[in-house]
């Protein structure tokens, strides 16, 4: 079995939640081989991350270089190609950085690549059996991956629980000497914080959230009226923002806001994992969708198969009626 590595995403000296999840994922490939954490960065922040990882990893490879102070995937890829054994199996969290890093890394390592893995079923010889989702999560697929020359596997955040058990008591090994000069034709300039909108959806107890099923801009008023009747605010999923029907500040998801309401009405939202990643605090989820196969029904508490354009106005009218009694 090839050696197992986990790429650690971190920010401001703190490892991402995925760091402990990748230990659990690695155990599904080879339970007898603890994975090695590989951490790139620079300075005190890198040292703090490496130190914190000693609780969950037996071995932590520290890759320090001034050029890696900001995680520019182009530079990180170069460093990893020089540090990692090319036939290794590397696990990477499938978020914006992993999407930037991994496809090209698999080419440079001459390894197989499987993106957005949601489950690992096991190894038979040089073949790894994995589970992915397609069509926005409407169906799943078994995938076989030839790992004889190594593999880069992007693992969906949250697909595995964080590793539990006794502290690993790991040691940090400095692998910086092998990196050499790093250059890139893509240069990081700055990060621009998201714009804030008129309503802060992260502070709302009740959200009426709309997706592609709202159909057109004029129909947004249907959701606004329901929200008003309920004493709630309107939020949305990505397609609504892409179509410019609502401001970006109203978007729930990994590339939008993280919300923690008590009650969440998902109206015409299919329920992609990127959307669900923005939903925290275990809210009571009501899903209304025309498509009975919509993945949102797998995570909702209550589901209704119906057209929101017909159901929501009736719901609004009934709530108003009861309130006026």
């Amino acid at each position: 079995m090839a050696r197992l590595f986990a790429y650690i995403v971190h920010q401001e000296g703190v490892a991402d939640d995925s760091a402990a999840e990748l230990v659990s994922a690695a155990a599904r490939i080879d339970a007898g081989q603890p994975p090695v954490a590989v951490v790139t960065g620079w300075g005190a922040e890198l040292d703090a991350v490496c130190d914190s990882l000693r609780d969950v990893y037996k071995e932590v490879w520290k890759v320090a270089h001034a050029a890696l102070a900001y995680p520019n995937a182009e530079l990180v890829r170069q460093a990893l190609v020089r540090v990692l054994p090319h036939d290794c199996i590397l696990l990477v969290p499938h978020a914006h950085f992993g999407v930037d890093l991994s496809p090209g890394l698999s080419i440079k390592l001459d390894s197989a690549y499987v993106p957005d893995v949601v489950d690992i079923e096991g190894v038979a010889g040089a073949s790894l059996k994995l589970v992915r989702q397609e069509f926005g999560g409407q169906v799943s697929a078994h995938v076989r991956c030839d790992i004889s020359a190594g593999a880069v596997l992007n693992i969906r955040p949250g697909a595995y629980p964080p590793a539990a058990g006794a502290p690993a008591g790991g040691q940090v090994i400095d692998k910086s000497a092998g990196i050499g000069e790093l250059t890139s034709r893509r240069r990081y300039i700055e990060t621009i914080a998201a714009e804030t909108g008129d309503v802060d959806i992260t502070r709302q107890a009740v959200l009426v959230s709309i997706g592609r099923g709202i159909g057109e801009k004029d129909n947004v008023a249907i959701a606004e009226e329901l929200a008003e009747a309920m004493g709630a605010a309107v939020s949305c999923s990505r397609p609504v923002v892409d179509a410019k029907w609502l401001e970006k500040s109203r978007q729930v998801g990994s590339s939008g806001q993280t919300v923690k309401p008590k009650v969440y009405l998902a109206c015409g939202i299919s329920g992609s994992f990127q959307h669900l990643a923005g939903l925290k605090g275990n809210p009571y989820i009501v899903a209304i969708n025309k498509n009975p196969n919509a993945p949102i029904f797998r995570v909702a508490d209550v589901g209704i198969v119906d057209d929101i354009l017909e159901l929501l106005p009736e719901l609004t009218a009934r709530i108003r009626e009861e309130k006026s009694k």
Partner: protein
Amino acid sequence: MEILVCAKRVPDTSENEISLDSAGTDIERDDLVYSVNEPDNYAVEEALQIVARTGGTVTVATVGGEDDEEILRREMAMGAQQAVLISDEAFAGSDGRGIAAILSAFVRRGKYDLILTGVQADDGAAQVGGMLAAMLDYPFASLVNAIEVLDGGKLKASREIQGGNKEISEIDLPCVLSIQTGINEPRYVGMRGIKQVAARPIPTPDAAELGVDPATVGEAAAKVKRVDYFVPAAGKGAEMLEGDREEIIGTLIELVRAKGGLN
């Protein structure tokens, strides 16, 4: 600027509910409506807007067969000057790496300053652009939601990162970018527009013409293969409210009120 956009024809999930066939190992393909992968329209629109400012041409390419010609016509109707159908029986069953290898052979034959792809397609893999860039040794950026053309063969590109934040970088041409949805508003294409480009020739280079060794692509060379489709066990799943709408609404109001959802 010479821009290449790589596009893909996929089942249109806004038109279709995807479900399993009777054997339970593949998706039900009868009556599926296909269209261009939606994010690819954003990539084509972005290319057209750049060319409108800087001059140059937009070429759209796909790897596939006769059926895929319709999406190339659609993107030409949007305004792309040229389209190419890269086609060979040896390409069937290629994994992402195989598709990237075929595209890289095509790119090496031409001279493109900028290569765009949609952020991802029906399989949610988001892989071909990054692989293509690595094969060509071009810089790459994913999830791009704004592009500004700078002097001196460079772009300023914004990537969408967590929480709606934007990561701004400068990137040298030639490069490969994967375009996030929402970057622009893709223009409407009507039947009339598609008819107007119906007679435009679409070259169909094959493996021999591109110098692709058939042994390195296609199903036999694929390291990653889909075995089957399935629907996962529901887990806890939602309690489904059934009956007539009035009844459902009554139940729903009670449930939501009990959870503090009516204020």
